[in-house]
């Protein structure tokens, strides 16, 4: 089975070429079927390899052809099959095929149907290169490739000029990260004289802790991860990226591409273990992003924007876990997050589809009765992300919190706060969308329709995965003998790791778990009161009168919530959402467009077309250069 593993990479590429070149001539849903099959077959192959891969198996290195050979630098086109890459491959191809299938329904009427599938296949191809590459350079090809596909897909609906701008912004921001990555690659090569992961890992065993080169190199890699995984300060592209079609948001901007940064850190964990200071930075950036994005999410009214900020927040949590060296925990959360966030995005897509393009949750409401099936899967997704027992999100999030509790109480408290905020904005989203009464006019209501089977089937599959995903890596407490399956599967790659996680006291673990679940449930009820019973609506200018009215109605809890938590938090949220974020935007925008452009404009004035002026300037330059070269000694 391993012999045919190259097909895993080849099929999506073939799908891209077929759809890209011949797609426009095909009729109906043929391009969609081709695209889906081109991803599903690799999934089957990867599944076969996975079942053959025992705990004692050695990582398989498959070398295809030599690529770059410069000085003593060598890079081959080769892939590495080990537990980590296998797990990522399964996520990418598995969720990828579901989303492809879903897209057949979602994109059915789009004129760029074939083009869409060719980009998606190209994305899967690049993403597989990223996770399967046996050296940093192959990873880098995939890294750039997914950035490019993300750019193409964000700007897919060119009807709106802003979308093209958002796409380019995403690409430029990604590029900043990418170039950090390549600087890291060059640095690591100069240090280890190899960029193969396995060889580097062996060399790294003999390197001192906190070696300065390693610190700088890991910082560079981390900059790359920040760009790709949308962390502060390079995160603003991700909410903008919601301009793309919803399946794209699900696939690229939730389940796969944005987790590439986490993959990179896990893949290069043997370097990060040597740089504890960088690891600390990772967790600080992670927790800051997590809370920051969660606060912004509280005030968003676009169904996709809420999910986008939620993604940024969850990615932040994964970075926190990485920062304390809990690599398997982060990977577990990557996996479950891929399940429920893809589910939520696709569910949101189903809602948007049902409402013919409406994305503002203020214009929704009461959809529970209109689109029952979508409601149920969305509910499952929400419960999973909030961490309600026994859904998958609870297990992965709880594992992160447990690890943090051991390592650092401060980080634990902040992460707990962040995950409670998750519950707040997710329940708000759920209640406003599906509960209460429909708020747009009746004419539109009559047109609401449930999505077709081709869209609902993937949703149900994802819903099942979101419910039972926790089984993959049960804590010892619940799983008994079969606990921590994923941790055991991934364990071989961490054999060099100097940081290992132990098990804690069972009582404390139960306590923590109960605390989180309990708080989430309370938040759920409070919000149910506010948004469903009270039918209060988010208005851009929520006035104090609303609070007074609540007091009059003796909703003491609401009052407390609203004045103590909600008002300040919403205020901060508005502050972050409008001021701070635009400042981040402004800083990067200033440097990357406006500032440079104004310098460029003044430079352009020199080019005035007057030959005499040119010649005088050139002669002047010669004189200056002559003085510099011959008279000034540096």
């Amino acid at each position, binding site marked *: 089975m391993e012999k045919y593993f190259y097909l895993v990479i080849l099929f999506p590429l073939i799908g891209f070429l077929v759809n890209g070149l011949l797609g426009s001539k095909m009729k109906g849903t043929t391009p969609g079927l081709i695209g889906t099959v081109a991803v599903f077959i690799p999934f089957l192959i990867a599944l076969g390899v996975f079942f053959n891969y025992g705990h004692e198996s050695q990582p398989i290195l498959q070398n295809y052809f030599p690529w770059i050979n410069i000085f003593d630098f060598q890079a081959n086109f080769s892939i590495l099959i080990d537990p980590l890459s296998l797990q990522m491959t399964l996520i990418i191809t598995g969720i990828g095929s579901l989303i492809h299938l879903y897209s057949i329904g979602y994109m059915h009427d789009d004129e760029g149907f074939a083009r869409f599938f060719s980009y998606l296949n190209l994305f899967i191809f690049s993403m597989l290169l990223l996770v399967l590459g046996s050296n940093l350079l192959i990873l880098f090809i995939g890294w750039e*490739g997914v950035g490019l596909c993300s750019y193409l897909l964000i*700007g897919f609906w060119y*009807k709106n000029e802003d979308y093209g701008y958002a796409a380019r912004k995403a690409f430029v921001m990604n590029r900043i990260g990418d170039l950090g990555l390549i600087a890291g690659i060059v640095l690591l090569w100069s240090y280890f004289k190899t960029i193969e992961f396995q060889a580097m890992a062996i060399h790294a065993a003999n390197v001192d802790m906190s070696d300065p080169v390693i610190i700088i190199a890991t910082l560079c890699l981390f900059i790359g991860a920040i760009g790709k995984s949308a962390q502060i300060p390079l995160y603003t592209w991700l909410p903008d990226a919601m301009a793309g079609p919803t399946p794209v948001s699900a696939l690229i901007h939730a389940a796969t591409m944005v987790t590439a940064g986490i993959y990179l850190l896990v893949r290069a964990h043997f370097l990060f273990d040597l740089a504890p200071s960088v690891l600390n930075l990772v967790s600080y950036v992670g927790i800051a992003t997590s809370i920051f994005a969660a606060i912004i999410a509280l005030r968003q009214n676009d169904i996709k924007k809420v999910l986008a900020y939620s993604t940024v927040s969850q990615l932040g949590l994964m970075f926190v876990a990485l920062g304390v060296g809990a690599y398997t925990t982060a990977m577990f959360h990557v996996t479950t997050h891929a399940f429920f966030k893809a589910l939520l995005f696709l569910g949101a897509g189903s809602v948007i589809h049902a409402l013919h393009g409406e994305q503002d949750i203020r214009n929704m409401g009461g959809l529970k009765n209109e689109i029952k099936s979508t409601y149920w899967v969305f509910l499952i997704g929400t419960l999973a992300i909030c961490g309600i027992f026994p859904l998958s999100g609870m297990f992965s999030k709880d594992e992160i919190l447990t690890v943090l509790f051991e390592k650092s109480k401060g980080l634990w408290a902040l992460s707990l706060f962040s995950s409670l905020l998750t519950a707040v904005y997710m329940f708000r989203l759920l209640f406003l969308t599906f509960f209460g009464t429909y708020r747009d006019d009746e004419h539109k209501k009559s047109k609401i329709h449930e999505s077709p089977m081709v869209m609902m089937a993937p949703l149900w599959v994802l819903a099942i995965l979101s419910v039972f995903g926790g089984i993959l890596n049960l804590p010892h407490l619940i799983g008994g003998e079969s606990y921590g399956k994923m941790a055991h599967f991934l364990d071989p790659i961490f054999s060099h790791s100097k940081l290992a996680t132990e098990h804690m006291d069972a009582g404390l673990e139960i306590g923590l778990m109960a605390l989180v679940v309990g708080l989430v449930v309370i938040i759920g009820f409070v919000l149910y009161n506010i948004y469903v019973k009270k039918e209060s609506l988010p208005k851009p200018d929520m006035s104090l009168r609303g609070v007074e009215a609540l007091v009059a109605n003796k909703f003491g809890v609401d009052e407390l919530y609203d004045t103590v938590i909600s008002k300040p938090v919403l205020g901060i949220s508005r502050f972050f959402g409008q001021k701070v974020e635009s400042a981040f935007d402004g800083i990067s925008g200033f440097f990357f467009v406006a500032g440079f452009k104004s310098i*460029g404009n003044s430079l352009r004035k020199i080019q005035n077309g007057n030959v005499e002026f040119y010649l005088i300037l050139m002669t002047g330059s010669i004189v200056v250069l002559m003085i510099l070269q011959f008279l000034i000694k540096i």
Partner: protein
Amino acid sequence: MSVIIVILLTAILVLFLHIFEGRQWVNPLAILGLSLSFIILCLENNSLWGDYSSMIYMTQFAKVFTGTAIIFTILVFFINQSRLKLEEDTNNGDKLGLVLFSLCGAILLFTFTNITMLFLGIEILSIPLYVIASSSKHDLHSNEAGLKYFLMGSFATSIILFGMALIFGATNSLDIMTISEYFSQAEISKMAALGAFFVGIGFFFKVAAIPFHFWTPDVYEGTPSIWATYFATVVKIASFGAFFRLYILLGNVDNSPLYKVLVLIIILTVVVGTLTALVQENAKRMIAYSSIVNSGFLLMFFLNPSSDILSYFGLFILGYGLATIGIFSAIVYLESIGNSNGFEGFDGLGRSQPLFSLGVAICLLSLAGIPLTVGFLGKFYLLMSLSFDQWWMILLVIASSIISIVYYFRIFNGMYFSNKKASAIVAPEVVSPYLNFVVGFCALSLIIIGLFPDFYLNIFQ
């Protein structure tokens, strides 16, 4: 030598065929002659070249560069063929003849072993170009471009000649081996140093390094796009081929008379070039500035010259040339359907000509340095060739690459994401098969060599 003879004879045949009622065969004949000279180049044994009073010598480096220049010229002629279908050109033979003559000059620049040949090469390369630049007789911009190019080109040539005279005065020889022996001494005379300095300055002009770049945007914009393609590629590769050889001889020594200037000019070129490219509103001018920035990158190879670097240098310039030809052929197509060559001319091209614009897109990706293309490899090799005490150069390359995305992707955005004039653009015009061929050739070569760079790099051995 036989390569030069074949090209010269082709040029003469082309000229005569044109006046003797064979106008439609002129372009095919030129392409045929060039293909023949390419085959001869491949078959030729290097040793044959030593015989011409040791004036020229074909090294392996020269051979690869000659071959590249010939292929670029063939591609330019293919683009030209697409134009001939649409309009009657009564002077086509003259233009082709001039281009072929200037190609001979380019080959002299790769092969000279005597600085008189260098000077002859520069003049044979340049003088036909002044005429070509103004070849669109009734277009005022074209006339202006020709005159500007001529004035500033002769300015640069005179500076080079002055430098050569000083070098001759100091070394009493025109043979570059003798000169290089002189320069490798520990102490060289002021006169020789000044001579090397002036030759260097002249070449900075020829390769369009800032602050000697002023002619580039104006000339590229005014010159008919087909010939601007030739300027941006063959002329560039010729100037760089000669400059690199000279720099190894004159500048790559202890106490180099060029090193400080080189460093300063690289910084200026990359920084100013990138920033100015950002604000251009015209695709041709943007390409002109992009070619200036690429000159800056190519000059960085001069910092640590070695025999390996030669081949990486070749790879970089190949990637640049192929991508530029691809984008220029898109500009030629847009002009032929009456679009302006501002960025808005590209709007909607991705929908009206999907396959064609896929090729153009690959060329753009290569220029921007996205992996799996030659452009990425070129930049990667450039980074690897810089040593770590030149870390600020590395930063320069990286920063410039980030910003370059913004301006390269303006074309990209226009082709794929623009909604403006979508219906107007989707004209029934078919892209000429010749243009399709050129773009396809460029895009495929960029990807194939990007995947298997050793095929190309091994030719240098």
